[in-house]
């Protein structure tokens, strides 16, 4: 196992990329720590799979280098990298039994029969496949097939990392949770480096220690689930993570005060004069409180059982607020409190750090 370094790695599917928009993956420097559980989160087409395929070697990046530990593997074949990859749709060899599937990568590498048997038995034990080893793989359910394709990666000793490309897409909802817990347990027990691509924030946040959020071919934030929730580095992160997403309001900011259409809102830090250029304030629905008053109007209320979501119109902008289930609210005029510590400032979509 080794740390995986990406050094100024970028990729374009066009032969001679000129402008930033030509890149499927914009230049990225990142170190994937040994034994870390990472999630790559982002909408379809944001470059997640491109990044994953660069790590596994299915794609050679058009720029930059990929290092495993101290070894440059940028131009190495994918088979030499000792990477396990699980794809969106279960890939199994239909004509083989479960055992033959697991043996396949080892046979291709010319291991002796005795070594192969020992290793396959060990992995089957680890994945609870022992009693199914002689079944035909084609007849198994989708989740069992995903486990087998994971197993085919794991049988190779010295696996550097396990990459998952939206592995739960075709799994039944009630099995998803089970399979995810299993992956998590394997990670805790054996400490593989895992990179998990998904567009489902719940999957990402429950699986990973660190979530890498991508948008338009760019990594916009890398952080723990808590950091992503409390201090989104980019408006996209705020909008993409959380349900409903973060509220954003165009504002002008001066010192500790933001002004939205004439209404003053106090902030938790000192920002100096930011002017009016692409400045927004952002606040999560969880931190927006309703009070006595008439500065805003509640337009509708959705009761989700555990809590309610109020759709609010404030100075011509629409906002969402999360209201505790026991608090009774009715559509109509209401006051609105922005928690100063939770009200963040963004310029050109990026978080601005204020001075306390």
């Amino acid at each position, binding site marked *: 196992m080794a740390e995986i370094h990406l050094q100024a790695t970028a990729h374009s599917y066009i032969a001679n990329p000129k402008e930033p928009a030509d890149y499927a993956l914009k230049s990225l420097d990142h170190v994937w720590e040994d034994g870390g559980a990472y999630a790559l989160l982002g909408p379809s087409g944001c470059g997640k799979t491109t990044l994953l395929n660069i790590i596994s070697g299915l794609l050679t990046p058009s720029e930059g280098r990929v290092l495993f530990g101290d070894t440059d593997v940028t131009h190495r074949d994918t*088979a030499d990298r000792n990477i396990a990859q699980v*794809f969106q749709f279960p890939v199994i060899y239909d004509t*083989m039994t479960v055992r033959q599937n697991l043996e*396949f*990568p080892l046979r291709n590498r010319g291991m002796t029969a005795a070594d192969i048997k020992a290793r396959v038995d060990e992995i089957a034990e680890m994945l609870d496949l022992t009693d199914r080893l002689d079944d035909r793989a084609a007849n198994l359910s989708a989740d069992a097939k995903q486990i087998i394709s994971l197993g*085919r990666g794991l049988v190779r000793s010295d696996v550097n990392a396990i990459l998952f490309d939206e592995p739960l897409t075709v799994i039944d909802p009630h099995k998803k949770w089970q399979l995810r817990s299993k992956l998590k347990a394997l990670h805790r027990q054996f400490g593989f480096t895992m990179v998990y691509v998904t567009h489902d924030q719940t999957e990402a946040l429950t699986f990973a220690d660190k979530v890498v959020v991508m948008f338009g071919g760019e990594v916009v934030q890398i952080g723990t689930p808590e950091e992503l929730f409390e201090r989104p580095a980019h408006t996209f992160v705020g909008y993409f993570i959380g349900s409903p997403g973060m509220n954003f309001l165009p504002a002008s900011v001066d010192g500790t005060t933001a002004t939205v259409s004439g209404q003053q809102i106090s902030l938790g830090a000192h920002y100096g004069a930011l002017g009016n250029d692409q400045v927004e304030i952002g606040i999560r629905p969880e931190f927006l409180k309703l009070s006595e008053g008439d500065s805003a109007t509640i337009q509708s209320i959705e009761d989700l059982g555990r809590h309610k979501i109020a759709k609010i119109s404030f100075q011509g902008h629409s906002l969402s607020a999360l209201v505790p289930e026991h608090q009774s609210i009715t559509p109509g005029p209401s006051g609105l409190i922005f928690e100063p510590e939770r009200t963040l400032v963004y310029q050109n979509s990026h978080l601005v750090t204020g001075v306390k």
Partner: protein
Amino acid sequence: MMQKKLNQKAWFLVLPVFLLVAFSAVLPLMTVVNYSVQDSFGNNEFYWVGAEWFEEILNSSRFHDALGRQLLFSGIILAIEVPLGIWIALSMPKKGWGASLCLVLMALPLLIPWNVVGTIWQIFARADIGLLGHTLAAMGIDYNYTQNATAAWVTVIIMDVWHWTSLVVLLCYAGLSSIPDAFYQAAKIDGASRWAVFRFIQFPKMQRVLLIAVLLRFMDSFMIYTEPFVVTGGGPGNSTTFLSIDLVKMAIGQFDLGPAAAFSLIYFLIVLLLSWVFYTVMTARDAEAGQ
């Protein structure tokens, strides 16, 4: 359990198809059965002869020879067209304008009527004016399909390969296109060789379409008539007289209706039997897997 009411009116819905099949297939077939057990001397007079014609056909060396030639022909055709078709399908580009171009080129021979194909090759292979025949003759090769049995066979086989390999190619190509990229990527990660990719990914995924290709090519080649008839007329001698050519000679040339009818039925049963054998053998593994 839900009780279903028995409704005999449903039979009326099946009636149109039943009549259609009866008039187009069952009745003509019954006429043939009728001829096959009787003898006729014209004047619409028929005499019952029982299984006599069947015994005669089954014991005639003429039928044995034609059947032998037919089996050899179909065997050679399958042995060439199936592997060649798979190989071409594997080498065709997967996407882009190249793929479209290849598909169109491949489809072309399939669009040409049988007798036109026969005529094209009849002229193409002539030693005096044909491009192929003349070139071979100029190179000093003794090639003349009207006199030499081997040359006639080679001509008929190459013509069939040219005409029908495309069908195998198109079917296999469709099978290959249905394989998601992830399979190839997984195989790369597993370190699979080119041969292993074919053996464990491409071939299993092609199997179903390959079954159809083999059945179609077997049946068509076993019943081949027009092309060899146009090119060689069954000769030289009887060397390219396949079952269908022989049957037509017997039924229309000699007007032996009884023996020809018995011949037809035996021919039909052989095609049916061999198709069943192909189907059973090729789906044996699926059945084993309980699919």
